[in-house]
């Protein structure tokens, strides 16, 4: 038997105890109707129509074998996975009597899809695919347990719990760096003198210095000892600013901007963490979430888990757009803002960041253009106005000295970030 799948909100609690099944109601309705009509019409032969169904009901009665105690135990293969991975839920039924067939009804949560199911005598297995990142309720299982004859049923409800679905990071390797870096050891060469490996110049030898770095060509040319000067290697403080003020679906491709926002941010986070830089996170939209900058592979999962609640079962929360907390933004940290540029409120947040002097890059996620009928003049004019409005937002940002790059979902993020490597990213006005 296959499970019935229902989409939508959690169903109301099932009645407790045993109740008649559909088959019983059908047979008894026919038998009672025939019996009553036989009495009313005086046609004795109509009792024959009642006899068959009545005998079927009587012979299916379970006697004393109907269980009094039913318990279901749930096993979930994992509570954390990446998008596209499968999760297996197994429900096993324990009863103190004889049970008949199981009839499971599954109310699925919004972030998972049922791939396969297997219903046996005392257990049911379900395999789900995590469709989109987020922290989702897997769903609710109402397991209808029939008695041995299939006459009565009792419903056992099993909550399948929550599932954390991590986004699959976009491919990214490039890590643009700002002009000024904090005084912390890292892997990014800077213009400041230090103990790195990249030569930034040549200078005369000062008495007492080690002579292992002598630059021989200039030494022989000038007749005095000249030393190589090396640049310091510093770590970058980077903050990912996620615009979760809205979720827009591209009419052409069906991609969601919120999906792509976190995928792109996760890809860039991985790229920076590979270089042992520190990454922080600020998410605006709904409850303001932020995470102090940190490094290491585990920090990646901490960052993603911080954002998962943005989309808790597709709920809506009033955004908190007060001034961003200072702890979330280290001084001079490079801020990447991932936004579809569809909500004007994000401009206020970006202006606040620019005033703080943080170097800022806006990564624009495409929302797709609204589809309009070319014959409809008003719609065409509205589309032009929509395009002009978005272009005005981009101009406002570029006018403040903020680079705006466009990331196309499915493509490597490096394509969008490559132009930023031509020169280092400057901070805004203080």
């Amino acid at each position, binding site marked *: *038997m296959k499970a*019935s799948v*229902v989409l939508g909100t959690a169903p109301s609690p099932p009645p407790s105890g045993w109740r008649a*099944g*559909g*088959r019983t*109601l*059908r*047979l008894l*309705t*026919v038998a009672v*109707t*025939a019996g009553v*009509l*036989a009495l*009313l*019409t005086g*046609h*004795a*032969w*109509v*009792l*024959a*129509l*009642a*006899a*068959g*169904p*009545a*005998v*079927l009901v*009587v*012979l*299916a009665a379970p*006697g004393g*074998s109907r269980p009094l105690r039913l318990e279901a135990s749930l096993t979930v293969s994992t509570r954390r996975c990446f998008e596209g991975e499968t999760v297996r839920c197994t429900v096993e039924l324990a009863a103190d009597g*004889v049970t*008949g*067939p199981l*009839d499971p*009804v599954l109310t699925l949560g919004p972030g998972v899809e049922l791939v396969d199911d297997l219903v046996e005598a005392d257990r049911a297995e379900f395999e789900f695919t995590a469709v989109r990142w987020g922290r989702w309720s897997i769903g609710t299982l109402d397991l*209808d347990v*029939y008695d*041995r*004859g*299939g006459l009565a*049923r009792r419903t056992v409800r099993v909550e399948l719990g929550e599932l954390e679905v991590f986004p699959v990071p976009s491919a990214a390797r490039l890590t643009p760096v700002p002009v000024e870096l904090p005084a912390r050891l890292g892997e990014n060469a800077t213009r400041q003198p230090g103990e790195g490996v990249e030569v930034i110049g040549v200078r005369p030898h000062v008495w007492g210095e080690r002579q292992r770095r002598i630059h021989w060509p200039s030494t022989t040319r000038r007749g005095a000892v000249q030393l190589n000067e090396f640049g310091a290697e510093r770590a970058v403080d980077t903050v990912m600013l996620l615009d979760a003020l809205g979720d827009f679906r591209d009419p052409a491709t069906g991609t969601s901007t919120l999906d792509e926002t976190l995928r792109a941010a996760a890809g860039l986070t991985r790229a920076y963490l590979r270089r042992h830089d520190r990454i922080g996170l600020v998410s605006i939209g709904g409850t303001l979430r932020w995470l102090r900058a940190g490094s290491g592979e585990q920090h990646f999962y901490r960052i993603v888990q911080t954002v998962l609640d943005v989309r808790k079962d597709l709920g809506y929360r009033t955004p908190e757009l007060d001034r961003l907390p200072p702890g979330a933004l280290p001084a001079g940290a490079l801020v990447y803002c991932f936004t579809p540029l569809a909500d004007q409120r994000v401009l206020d947040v970006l202006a606040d960041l620019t005033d703080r002097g943080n170097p800022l890059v806006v990564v624009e996620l495409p929302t797709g253009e609204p589809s309009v009928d070319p014959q409809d003049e008003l719609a065409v004019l509205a589309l032009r106005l929509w395009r002009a409005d978005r272009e005005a937002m981009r101009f406002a940002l570029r006018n403040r000295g903020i680079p705006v790059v466009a990331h196309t979902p499915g493509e490597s993020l490096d394509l969008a970030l490559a132009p930023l490597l031509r020169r280092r990213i400057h901070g805004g006005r203080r």
Partner: protein
Amino acid sequence: MNPVRELPTRLVGTALLVAALDPVARSGARPLELVLLVPALGFAWWAAPPVPPRRGMEAHRPHHQLARHRNTVLAVVAVALGALHQPSALLAVALTVLLLGYLLMVDARGAAHVPLGPLPLLAAAGASLLVLLAALVPWQSTSGARLPAALGIGLAALAVGAGLYERRGRE
């Protein structure tokens, strides 16, 4: 649902309603009455296939409830129409067999189908035919009525015993 798999149930359900309407007795009826048979047959054709489990369980409007319980409605309508007149013995047997067959076919495709052994089927068919025999044979007012009555009681006891034996075998 597969239309080919639905076809036997549709045919049996439609035949059940046709038998309940007794078209042979209506052969002399007015054309208007015969025209009314067409929507009845359409209803039978629509209502006969087994309703998929859980279909429309969330709907509470009357027409949704009708669609959900259409198998039961068809069987009850057939019983009601059949009870309005006294059919011939052959038609009464046909109606009884068709009703039992239709109910068993619908049960076989239900949400919790428990395969029936041969004894419950024989007991149900035997009980129906026995009652039909007792109703159609004009023995009630004769002195020989005791014999079929005793036979009926014996067969009923046999059916109950067979059922109990079947149950013990399954346990």
